[in-house]
């Protein structure tokens, strides 16, 4: 039993080391010789433009549900006026980044992993190496750059769609006035909330792109191996996104409290 645990721990540590080494190699390669604009543009289109509809629908419907739940839960206590703030706060700090990351993982991450995985099992990645091309620089770096740039933008888009969706439900279904939906946001949505959402989206973007590319680059075992790697890439990304979300929420709020305390001391 102990031997199995030891072996598994060693395997996991080795995998983490390998993953971190790939991330550094990708960043190093991208900084040393940035990938061609054509490759990056292709990925920007694939990750960004092609994900717009999925992300829009996700944000929109989440906004609907949030507004409806807030209205039903809080309305009878006379708190229907906070519907807008609740929708906006939840979308900006949590649901926007998380749901966008989930949707992009499902749509883009799985496809990246499958594509790289099938290149790996058909020796196309070895062919790149044999032609003196670093596959991390040629294949992963453009995806990394595009992901890091596009996922925060998609998150912003999804968040705005959520707030808009909530507005439609609150105003046209529950007859709240537009002012009572939007006005409290000025008071309660802070720059910190927006920064939290952006930082989370950025970190989730890095995580999902690198995990899915790593799993793809390490695929073995033919077509079945590609399927296995794709499933693992999605599951691992989801878990890492959720776990990192918790720690990011704690860390960012602690930093925020610290800054607020320092500022008050200064006053």
């Amino acid at each position, binding site marked *: 039993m102990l031997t199995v645990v030891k072996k598994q721990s060693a395997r996991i540590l080795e995998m983490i080391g390998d993953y971190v080494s790939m991330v550094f*190699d990708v960043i190093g390669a991208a900084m040393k010789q940035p990938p061609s604009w054509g490759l990056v543009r292709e990925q920007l289109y694939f990750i960004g433009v092609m994900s717009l509809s999925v992300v829009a629908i996700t944000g929109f419907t989440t906004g609907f549900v949030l507004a409806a739940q807030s209205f039903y839960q809080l309305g009878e206590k006379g708190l229907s006026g906070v519907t807008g703030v609740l929708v906006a706060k939840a979308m900006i700090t949590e649901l926007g980044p998380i749901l966008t990351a989930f949707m992009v993982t499902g749509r883009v991450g799985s496809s990246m992993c499958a594509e790289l995985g099938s290149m790996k099992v*058909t*020796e*196309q990645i070895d*062919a790149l190496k044999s*032609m*003196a091309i*670093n596959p991390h620089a040629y294949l992963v770096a453009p995806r990394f750059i595009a992901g890091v740039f596009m996922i925060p933008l998609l998150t912003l888009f999804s968040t705005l769609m959520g707030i808009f969706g909530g507005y439609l439900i609150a105003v046209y279904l529950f007859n709240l006035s537009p002012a009572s939906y939007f006005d409290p946001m000025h008071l309660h949505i802070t720059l910190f909330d927006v920064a939290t959402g952006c930082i989370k989206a950025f970190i989730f973007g890095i995580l999902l792109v690198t995990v899915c590319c790593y799993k793809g680059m390490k695929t073995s075992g033919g077509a079945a191996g590609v399927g296995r790697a794709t499933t693992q890439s999605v599951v691992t990304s989801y878990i890492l996104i959720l776990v990192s979300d918790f720690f990011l929420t704690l860390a960012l709020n602690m930093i925020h409290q610290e800054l607020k305390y320092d500022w008050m001391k200064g006053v």
Partner: protein
Amino acid sequence: MIRIRNLWKRYGAVDVLKGLNLDADRDEILVILGRSGVGKSVLLRHIIGIEKPDRGSIEVEGVKITELKKNEIYHAVKNMGMLFQGSALFDSMNIEENTAFYLKQHGDAKTGKALSPAEISQKVKHALAMVGLEGTEKKMPSDLSGGMRKRAGLARLIVYRPSILLYDEPTTGLDPITAQQINELIVQTQKELKGTSIVVTHDINSALFIADRLALHQDGQILYVGEPKTFLKIDDPTIRFLKETYKIKESHR
């Protein structure tokens, strides 16, 4: 020129290479014969820097590939090329793009000078003509037969005229006529490029047709190396078996 000394590689609990030694000279085709799964392809992957050995050294034209860092290897293998068993054509690119890939990325292999689109196009046309694939420029790899894919892979290799050419099972899975076409192309390429070619195969007929020297790979080592005539005279059970199975006489060549 390639010098391999005391090369060891282990996968899991199995030693695939066990202190392998081998020399390949300039302007020769060295064919490595051996049964499937003995580590012939693994050896090629070590020579071109895809794999790192556990122990031992590989020197290619004076550069010790095995002592280089990961990023240095990419620079060191610029003048090398490999034809993969499954061709390994990039399936997102058509045949023209596949063939032009190296030239677009690195320019001229010898000088490193960037090439104009017209120069690239001319070289691609020449390479495709050499392997008899004119008119397939716009086809995708999935539109080609196995033999055509092998030839397209060969065109992608010879287009940048590397001085070290590695062929992994070039005739496996092909019908005898296509296999012979590939054999002739390997010999023709060698005549034109005058580099060092290493061909890994288990096809003794193909080996006898193209080889300047033959090597027998068995149990993770090179057991014998010699010219085809002397090679066939070696008293070894595997060589005897191959000769009997394929009805090959010692005067074959």
